[in-house]
């Protein structure tokens, strides 16, 4: 079930599941047609708020939206409207870029930042794959380490309504991240403004953002810790949902234990 946050700029939708302390999750550019196993695993420990970024899912894209920083500003106001105490913010892929940008704008609502295969920083080696050159189905498939997982999560044939949702999402990504492709020339410098504990997670076989880009994030955020999950592609949340949930849970526990000490 989706809930709506009414911002002055338009509605922002979110869903909530599980019980426990709150965490917020920002999705990838391609949303799985089915339920998210990662959110389900996380909901074993937390009340999980999954926000539909403006221009994705049930959140309409304001016509004036032009870049990821504006998208992050709207997301930040959505987070404020949730009226939660400071809580962990988890961003997956494209949502990782948004989450990092949110944290550069305001650290006060975020207790920990977890970035999973984030877009947004230009890799020193290799390049972020160009979504424009791939069909919607090819792009979703490219995100898996094991191609058979595409069929597991997306089925044999994509239903037209799912294809339309993927297309809508791609239109928003195009609207805000067309050039430079999937990154910002300024984000790496801005990351130094983030003062909350940060965990960077990467799939070892990410064909969309090269795993080596984890080093670029580590360079930009020297206090961040990095974990690589083997046998996972860009869509870590689909291929290793339990492992990812454990890493997130362990990271949050470790930082909050440190705070108590």
């Amino acid at each position: 079930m989706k809930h709506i946050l009414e911002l002055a700029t338009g509605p922002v939708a979110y869903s909530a599941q599980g019980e426990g302390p709150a965490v917020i999750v920002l999705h990838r550019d391609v949303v799985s047609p089915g339920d998210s196993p990662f959110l389900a695993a996380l909901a074993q420990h937390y009340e999980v708020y999954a926000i539909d970024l403006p221009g994705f899912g049930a959140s309409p894209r304001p016509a004036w939206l032009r870049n990821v920083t504006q998208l992050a500003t709207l997301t930040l106001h959505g987070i404020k409207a949730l009226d939660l105490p400071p809580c962990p913010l988890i961003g997956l892929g494209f949502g990782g870029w948004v989450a990092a940008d949110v944290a550069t704008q305001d650290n006060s609502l975020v207790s920990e930042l977890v970035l999973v295969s984030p877009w947004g920083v230009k890799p020193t080696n290799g390049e972020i794959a160009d979504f424009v050159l791939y069909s919607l189905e090819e792009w979703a498939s490219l995100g898996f380490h094991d191609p058979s997982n595409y069929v597991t999560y997306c089925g044999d044939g994509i239903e037209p309504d799912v294809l339309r949702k993927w297309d809508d999402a791609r239109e928003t990504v195009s609207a805000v991240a067309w050039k430079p492709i999937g990154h910002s020339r300024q984000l790496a410098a801005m990351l130094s403004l983030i003062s909350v504990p940060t965990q960077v997670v990467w799939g070892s076989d990410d064909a969309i953002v090269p795993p080596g880009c984890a080093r670029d994030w580590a360079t930009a955020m020297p206090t961040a810790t990095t974990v690589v999950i083997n046998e996972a592609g860009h869509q870590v949340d689909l291929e290793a949902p339990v492992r990812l949930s454990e890493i997130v849970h362990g990271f949050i526990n470790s930082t909050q234990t440190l705070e108590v000490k």
Partner: protein
Amino acid sequence: MLLSYFTEQPMSAYPEQAAVNLSPDDHPARHAGDTIVLFSNKHFDRAEASRLYQERMVEYRAVEEVGFDAIMVNEHHGGPYCMNARCNITSAALVAITERVKILQAGNPLPLWDNPIQLAEEIAMLDLMSGGRIIAGMIRGGGPEQIINDVNPVYNRDRFEEAHELIIKAWTTPGPFRWDGEHYQVRVVNPWVLPLSEPHPRILVPGVSSPETIAFAARHAYPFLGLNTTLEATKKMWSYYHEVAAEAGYESGPQHRGYLMRIHVAETEEKAIRNAEEFMWMLGEFTGIGRPHWVAPTGYSGFDSRMARLKNIKNFSVSLKTQLEAGTIIAGTPEQVIPKIKMWLEETRPGILVFHANEGKVDHQSSMSCIRLMGEEVLPAVREIGKELELVGPDEVDAPVSLAHARSRVGAQQV
């Protein structure tokens, strides 16, 4: 009638087998058979390309000599189906090598220009240098054009409309003024070259099936040029144009209707059919073979509209035999093609007819022969038919160049 000649200026010397196959060093998103966007330009043969460019110039001279009214030039990027990477460069060459024919640009892809004032200047220069022979076609550009030129398809239509508005204002409103638009901001608009034609060169809008584009042309009373559309689609197109024109307050006529016809003429039917096979190179997809998401990228238009457009493109993949029967390709001796052209003229009543004549690997000699036969035998017959059917081109009725122009004319009766 305005009778024009056209060729895509294909880079026909590329190795076709290389396009059919996948190479280990191909981009991972390329599929076997793709000839655009990701088909490597390592297959571009520079010497052959130079020869082809020069042959086209010889042919264009002949086109003028045999009596065509216009030469149409276009622009595409990123594939061997068209070597016109810049419409205005070919136009400039035509300005230099011809004296009489109109230069029908079909056209400049407006969204590709980050500063439309530079485009306004280039077209103005061409119009001045040619003595007012430019027909300034304006287009959105196809999907590959957006990808290759790194122009965001999400804003394509908005950029097209805003660039159009800015160019018209730059040509018709004395500067200096400032332009603070959504997609374009120009500090000082004050171009010191303005077109010879007043208020500006005639504008034409080419397209396939997009109702938005047809409506744009009709709202401004710009002629619309249907690109090889089927008979049924062409009739629907004109019906819609007429409807929008009526809403805008004028009655559309042949001067607003253009049609690009794939037609090849030779001394014998056998030779004509053989050369017409070249309309089917690249599987008959005259804009090359590429992925559907390149041809119509997300955001270029609405989801449903893009799906419909792709369906229309797939229609080009039907066999030559079927297309000859349907009349979407015409081939034969002059005597054979004239009745077929007449049928199209009777059914769709265009005032502008463009012969897309030599495609693919049709050689220079055959192209010259086709041009000569068209000039000697086909054009005179078509002009007669046009007179009988009262199919007038825009200049024949001194049509205003736009609806705004019509309204500014004192006592103007006809748009």
